[in-house]
């Protein structure tokens, strides 16, 4: 992973002005050397003793801080201040990587046995994962708040917190590679412009153009990496390039050849692109056989050199073996379109020509030649078959369909079921709750009965009585229209709108916290291990606290909004009550079942 050296200030407390010095970090430890050698603030700390890192959100004049916490329970740590956020972020990423690596080390023997024995104790975290989590937290302040409250408040473990947000992490990972702007379809053209008075021609190059040039002309890219900055500067390089472009554009082949003979760097731009030629050779082997015209050329004995009809006006006789580029517009167009289709593969910021060139070169590392595989590949056959088949003579093979895409099936179906139940809530009398303890035989008979009764009463189709259906429909309609009326008419005038702002915020915070806690609470049932038991206890404590806070809010509220607040708080307390009562039930049950030796 390497090491890192950066200027920073070490602070013992937040108020401390800080000791300026140099922060050095490597894989194992970090050291801090103050600029003032007399200062006693020298540090030499092993990363293994660091449990986590925190950083602040920088806005306005606040300094950029990074806190490397020693032990999350005790809260001790090292605080550094940086000149700017960029430096801080660099450090932070580095630390995150190092910590991620250290946390990947198997549990140390000093660990309490109950943790090391459980699967949720320690996670194998990759650096990327840590980074992703950090990024998520940074982007979502609400999440950050929750994280602060529960993880740092030691109610939930880091892993527990993230376990329920797996999909968020995955999404985030996917999103990064999903849609990024590619090259423009239109070819940005390096056009010279003359000012008309002097004998000077000006070319304008933007970083986007440079990116495109590097992508379309690998030889230029290679030349750039070879020449800059060893042989010439950035500017010189592009001046040469533009000179060559100008020569090509004016089709002044004589001048081009002459200049190229003198200047070997310039010659690079005028030559045919050998990298492209090599790539083409590889690609041609993988081309769809139904359009492989190169294979025709291999089969054409009529057009042996000097055979066939040479000069009937349809063919051009050009010598193509010339080393100097006969680059034409059509070649450029084809190349451009090909690059656009390939898309931008590497994750590069359009900042520096050098990094762009390097990234492109890396992404272009040739895959191993697979010429032996191509013949047997099934894909070719399928392709050819598709091109030859006459589609409408054949009955359609299979109806094409788009697979249903549900991110989290369980969640989806649960919510659907809940919806269905809720909407039916008013008319529940139509469904009889039944104790389903039937044997298969009984079920079979029952179904047969149903079917036969259905057959008999085919005429009046009694699957659902019509008045019942009407009732359900009416109710549903009413519900929908009512809620819509309420929501649309006065969105600001909801219950929440009527309570004072700070109470509103407080309630919202509690609501999100309760949701998070409840999720963890319910997901831990049935309790099968000590870890889960501990978790439930912790969560329960936290819920009790919130419960009390809610009660306090309710009681302290102004009389004019008390009713609204109590209506708002009610669903929260109800949900919490349900959880508590469930917990009580479980405890009673386990007490009845007799004390388990290990305590739950």
């Amino acid at each position: 992973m390497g090491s890192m050296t950066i200027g920073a200030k070490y602070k013992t407390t937040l108020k401390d002005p800080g000791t300026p010095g140099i922060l050095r970090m490597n894989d194992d430890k970090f050291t801090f050397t103050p600029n003032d050698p007399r200062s006693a603030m020298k540090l030499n700390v092993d990363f293994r003793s660091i449990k986590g890192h925190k950083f602040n959100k920088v806005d306005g004049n606040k300094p950029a801080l990074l806190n490397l916490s020693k032990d999350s329970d005790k809260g001790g740590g090292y605080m550094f201040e940086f000149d700017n956020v960029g430096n801080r972020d660099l450090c932070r990423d580095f630390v995150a990587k190092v910590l991620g690596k250290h946390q990947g080390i198997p549990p140390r023997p000093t660990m309490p046995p109950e943790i090391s024995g459980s699967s949720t104790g320690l996670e194998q975290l990759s650096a990327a994962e840590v980074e992703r989590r950090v990024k998520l937290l940074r982007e979502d302040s609400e999440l950050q708040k929750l994280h602060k409250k529960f993880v740092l408040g030691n109610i939930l473990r880091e892993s527990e917190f993230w376990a329920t947000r797996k999909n968020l992490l995955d999404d985030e990972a996917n999103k990064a590679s999903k849609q990024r702007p590619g090259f423009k379809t239109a070819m940005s053209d390096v056009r010279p412009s003359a000012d008309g008075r002097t004998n000077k021609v000006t070319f304008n190059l933007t970083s986007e153009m440079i990116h495109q040039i590097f992508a379309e002309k690998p030889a230029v890219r290679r030349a750039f990496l070879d020449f800059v900055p060893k042989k010439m500067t950035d500017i010189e390089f592009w001046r040469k390039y533009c000179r060559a472009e100008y020569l090509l554009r004016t089709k002044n082949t004589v001048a081009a050849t002459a200049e190229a003979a003198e200047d070997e760097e310039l010659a690079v731009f005028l030559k045919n692109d050998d990298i492209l030629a090599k790539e083409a050779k590889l690609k041609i082997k993988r081309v769809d056989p139904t359009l492989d015209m190169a294979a025709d050329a291999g089969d054409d004995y009529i057009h042996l050199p000097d055979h066939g009809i040479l000069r009937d006006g349809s063919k051009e006789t050009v010598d193509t073996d010339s080393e100097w580029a006969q680059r034409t517009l059509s070649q450029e167009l084809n190349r451009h379109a090909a690059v656009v289709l390939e898309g931008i593969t590497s994750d590069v910021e359009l900042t520096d020509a050098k990094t762009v060139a390097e990234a492109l070169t890396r992404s272009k590392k040739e895959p191993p030649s697979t010429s032996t595989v191509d013949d047997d590949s099934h894909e070719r056959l399928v392709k050819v078959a598709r091109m030859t088949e006459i589609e409408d003579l054949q009955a359609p093979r299979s109806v094409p369909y788009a697979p249903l895409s549900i991110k989290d099936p369980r969640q989806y179906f649960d919510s659907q079921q809940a919806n269905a139940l809720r909407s039916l809530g008013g008319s529940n009398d139509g469904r009889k709750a039944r104790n389903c303890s039937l044997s298969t035989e009984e079920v079979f008979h029952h179904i047969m009965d149903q079917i036969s009764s259905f057959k008999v009463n085919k005429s009046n189709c009694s699957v659902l009585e019509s008045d019942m259906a009407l009732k359900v429909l009416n109710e549903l309609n009413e519900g929908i229209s009512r809620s819509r009326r309420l929501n649309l008419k006065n969105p600001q005038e909801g219950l929440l709108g009527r309570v004072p702002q700070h109470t509103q915020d407080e309630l919202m915070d509690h609501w999100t916290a309760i949701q998070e806690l409840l999720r963890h609470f319910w997901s831990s049932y049935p309790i099968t291990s000590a870890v889960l038991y501990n978790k439930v206890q912790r969560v329960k404590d936290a819920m009790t606290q919130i419960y009390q806070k809610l009660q306090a809010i309710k009681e302290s509220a102004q009389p004019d909004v008390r009713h609204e607040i109590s209506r708002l708080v009610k669903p929260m307390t109800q949900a919490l009550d349900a959880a508590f009562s469930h917990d009580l039930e479980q405890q009673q049950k386990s007490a009845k079942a007799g004390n388990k030796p290990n305590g739950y």
Partner: protein
Amino acid sequence: MRFDLDGLPVHFPYAAIYPEQHAYMGELKRALDARGHALLEMPTGTGKTAALISLITSYSLANPSRPLRLIYCTRTVHEMEKTLAELRLLFAHLPPAASRSLLALGLSSRKNLCVHPQASAAAARDSVDTACRRLTASWVREKAASDPESTPLCEFYETFDRAAAAGDLASLMPPGVYTLADLRALGRQRRVCPYFLARQMVKYANVVVYSYQYLLDPKVASIVSREMQKECVVVFDEAHNIDNVCIEALSVSIRKQTLEGAERNLRRISHEIDRFKATDANRLRAEYNRLVDGLAQRGNLPISDAWLANPALPDDILREAVPGNIRRAEHFLAVLRRLVRFLDGRLDTETVENEMPVAFVASIHSQAGIDQKMLRFCYDRLHSLMMTLEITDTDEFMHIQTICDFATLIGTYTRGFSIIIEPYDDRMPDIRDPVIQLSCHDASLAIRPVFDRFETVVITSGTLSPIDLYPRLLNFNPVISRSFTMSLTRDCICPMVLTRGSDQLPVSTKFDMRSDPGVVRNYGRLLLEMASAVPDGIVGFFVSYSYMDGIVNSWHEMGILQDIMQHKLVFIETPDVVETTLALDNYRKACDCGRGAVFFSVARGKVAEGIDFDRHYGRLVIMFGVPFQYTLSRILLARLEYLRETFQIKEGDFLTFDALRQAAQCVGRVIRSKADYGMMIFADKRYSRHDKRSKLPGWILSHLHDAHLNLSTDMALHIAREFLRRMAQPYDKTGSGGKKTLLTEEDLQAMAQDAMEM
């Protein structure tokens, strides 16, 4: 499906059949019954290939006395692949007993078949051939037998040779369908040379699919297709250009570079002769004796030694002893030197010369002392000499071979050829590039042996209009000659003639108008408007490379190209086949991914000849201009004169016919089946004239409404939008009302019933 066609049970690989295909099969069956030739025009996109192969296969399955021997000639390798894919589909639908015993294979050059890791790595065809010969020539293998250490051999060929000696080739290649890729895969798997295996198995295969030239070009045909039997049914698919292939097969041109190369070759040969004289004089003596005995060739050459054969047609090759004065190697060498010197002198001319072969031969005789008979034997004598000298790198000796080809041809033919010497290309008069061109004018010469040799030759294409011209051009008598129209379920093709641009001024590629900036802009605007309205792929065809290059550059300067690229990616055909292939591949990718693309191509070019732009790969084809040949070309003028004198075909008629068949060929690539749809725009004011338009094939004409004959860009755009909207609607595939456009098995049974009752 299976159905009964006039008493013949036909196996057809699809669940339904077009009525055209049914009728087509009927005609084909009559031709097979009569054991005669057939000329059939059927619109593209109606499944000619499927109809052809299923009828011919079914015919021989029903007539055990006429076993399946089909030679299917395609224009290109990719069409070969498609045909083999259709065969694979058909064989899967045959009764298992039949499909288990049938063998179908494609044949191509070493370049496309070689699996030897080093030899196949070479870039050019000739280099692969040479690399192969270095490993497999008989003398190399003889040498390896005595000195196995230093002489590398090709293990693939050795396996093949052992199996061939044991008569065990069939076990290497079980029945089935083999595309070129399959052959290579088989070769790699069994460690046997796919090229020689295929060459050998061609004799036993039921269906052979290969390029036209393997039958038409005497240089190749006499080594590859020599042993094909008379009972074979020969099919030329996409045969609208067959006359051009025929005349090209017998044409040679000699440039300055050729002569220089030939002189180099002669020096090398003379070195070799000296070397052999010093080391192995017996070999030369043995050759001389053989020539005295009258054998130009050493009888049956080993398959690996075979080289391009005599350029003259097999019937015209003299079966007599090589004349005495060129039997000795040195003497022959001197003759060749004199010939090269003579040609060099003729090339050094300032004026255009046009001579008949007889006069040319006479002047050779008087100035270089080489008589007609010696000229005729040039090729065979050279071949024999190179065998004797054990020369493997034949690609180096291409030049002297060209000279000998030329000599043999002018020594053999007196009619139908002319020799044209031009000091420079007319279009670039400042650049001196002299050339001697021996050009064949008579397409019937090359194809005659095919018609004579095989009972049934079927010539078919989507564009053979006017259909009565082909029998005259090729000089044969078909028993069946018919042009089918297309019954469409809906108007899924929309041809239009665009005569005016958006500014209502006429557009044309006529010589005096083509460089007018107004016309260039109008063409550009047309494409731009269409690119914004038409989804997926658009193909533009231009009349020539130079015109395309010019107009695309002008569009680039005007900024129109940039505007077009806002809508679609642009790809262009270039003279470099590799680049064009990759561009096409990318074009398809762009159409597949929905980005849409425009492909610029050239009429008469490689793309126009064989690439399909069906379905979303081509929703619109624009033919910019009328693709007339370059009428000032002396070769064309000489050919026209010959056609008028010999076949009474008028110059103007032939030129229009030729231009319109190219145009029809270009736009016809857009349709693949009746479910497909596409538009065709003929953008030139000359298309609105009746004499031009009427030369288009009937299936296009029948959809060309009168209202679409004289459009401007804005009207065309309106029609295009309407058409695309109409095509997007769902429709009944089998056709509505009384007109059925898709027949099922029941329909065919009902038809047969009706015929019985009548």
